[in-house]
């Protein structure tokens, strides 16, 4: 019997709401919408019978629901300019009033990370975030997303390639308008 076998809805929320909020932020959800989507994710989990112990960890299970929520959310907000999105995502990364210990460098790194992740499409992004940032195994990711394991590996490989190229391109353009924007936000 695993440690998660007797999680009721409140306990599930208390333990994993920060994880879900963080995951949604990495999936490009704006700060103003994070709480609403967290509520939706746990509501769907509750109506679906809650988390049942199995091969997937609670984080993987919740991430699969959050992925669907984030995908719908991004589709709705596709018309937003990316500058506004960058503002939102940067503020999602931290608020000085609540977490004064976070320094400017950390915020800059997170803003840059989110911009690089924006270069990935949703399918690759979720695999990359779950594998590289959440530390999930590719097999578990494939099972939760309902895709073949080979497809998950293929997406991860492609996502890594795009991630490297985009990070390099952004690093090589420090004087672009985007780079200036990042420096101003992070300063």
């Amino acid at each position, binding site marked *: 019997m695993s440690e998660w076998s007797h999680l009721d809805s409140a306990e599930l929320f208390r333990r994993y709401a920060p994880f879900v909020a963080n995951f949604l932020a990495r999936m490009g959800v704006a700060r103003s919408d994070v709480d609403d989507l967290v509520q939706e994710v746990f509501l769907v989990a509750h109506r679906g019978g809650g988390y049942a112990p199995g091969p997937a960890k609670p984080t993987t299970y919740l991430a699969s629901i959050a992925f669907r929520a984030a995908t719908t959310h991004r589709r709705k907000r596709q018309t937003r300019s990316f500058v506004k999105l960058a503002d939102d995502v940067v503020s999602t990364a931290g608020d000085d009033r609540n977490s004064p210990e976070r320094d400017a460098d950390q915020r800059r790194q997170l803003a840059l*990370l989110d911009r690089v992740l924006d270069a990935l499409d949703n399918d690759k992004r979720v695999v990359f975030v779950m594998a590289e940032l959440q530390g999930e195994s590719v097999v578990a990711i494939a099972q939760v997303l309902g895709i073949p394991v080979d497809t998950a590996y293929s997406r991860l490989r492609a996502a890594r390639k795009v991630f490297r190229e*985009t990070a390099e*391109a952004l690093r090589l353009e420090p004087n*672009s308008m985007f780079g200036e924007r990042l420096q101003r936000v992070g300063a």
Partner: protein
Amino acid sequence: MTDNHDTPMWDDPQESSALRQLLRAGRVENSDYDVERGLARHLAQLHSGAQLPAWAAQTTLQKSASWSLLAWLVPPVISAGVVGAWLALQPAAQAPASLGNLVPAPVKAPTTQLIEPAAVTPASDALGRTSEAKEVKRVLEDREAVRETVEANEHANVVTRTARPAARSNAGRRARATRLDDAPPSATSYAAVAQSRDSSGSTSVSGGVTSAKSANEESVATKAVAAVSPAAQEPAPSPAPVEEAKAKPAERRAKEEESASAKEDEVSGARLEREMRMLAVAQRVLTEDPARSLRLCRQGESEFRGSMFSAERKQVALLALVQLGKVEQARREGIPFLRAYPNAPWSARLRVALSTGKLPNP
């Protein structure tokens, strides 16, 4: 850098330190989410019996919709299968008569006349087939765009149309002349020539000499070959080309090759002009009608792939994507593109457009 999936990038020493630092920043629990406040809201929602979000309810609806779609599709398929089986079981002798009653009149070849949107859309909407109506509209818009492009390049098309039949007729004449040159001098009958070049011909023609005995048989066999082989249905050439081919084949070939190369140059010039005009139109309508601009760029790329204007066309397409609000897609395609062309005349404008999500003034 390796693609070993078991080693995460942030822990892979072969990755750059900047990249690993970036990923480590994402692995830290950064969320400042207020758990207690969120939990209170969550419990309140559960107690009030809040409805599922639209995206979750949509998934449920899609499942039920797939079943209703099956219910719509299965009966016609079964009916078609029953009718097909009944037709297959009919006696072979009666098949033509029965099929003659069932098969409708032959469908005429599609004409170039376009269906007007007003004639189609209301009926489709009335039936509730909005997706079909949108599809029809999209196809009509694409056709309209292609027609406008063709009209704008009338000159290029005229040259192309005149050049193609001429080249084709030259090639055909050259091929016939070659065959005639290779034929033995005694084979003056076109039927004999046709039989000798038709490998499927079963009549006996040896060395171009046809026996007198089989004169009638030859004519019958020629008719049979003409009925079976499409190649034999070519109109019989007049004796004049045969004599001409015998007289000066080398000179005529040289002239034909010269005229063919001249026509090819003309066609190449017309293609270049057409490509430039398409690109000019795409740039002109970039602000007012970015969808059309994007369509023209894609059509141009499919028609003139890898040409000297390919990069120029690509940047116009990326600007059109930005203007359409598809900034993420534009950035995904544009960043590697800008790395390949960092200092082109249009690179700065494209870079600004990708950064700001808006088209700068040219």
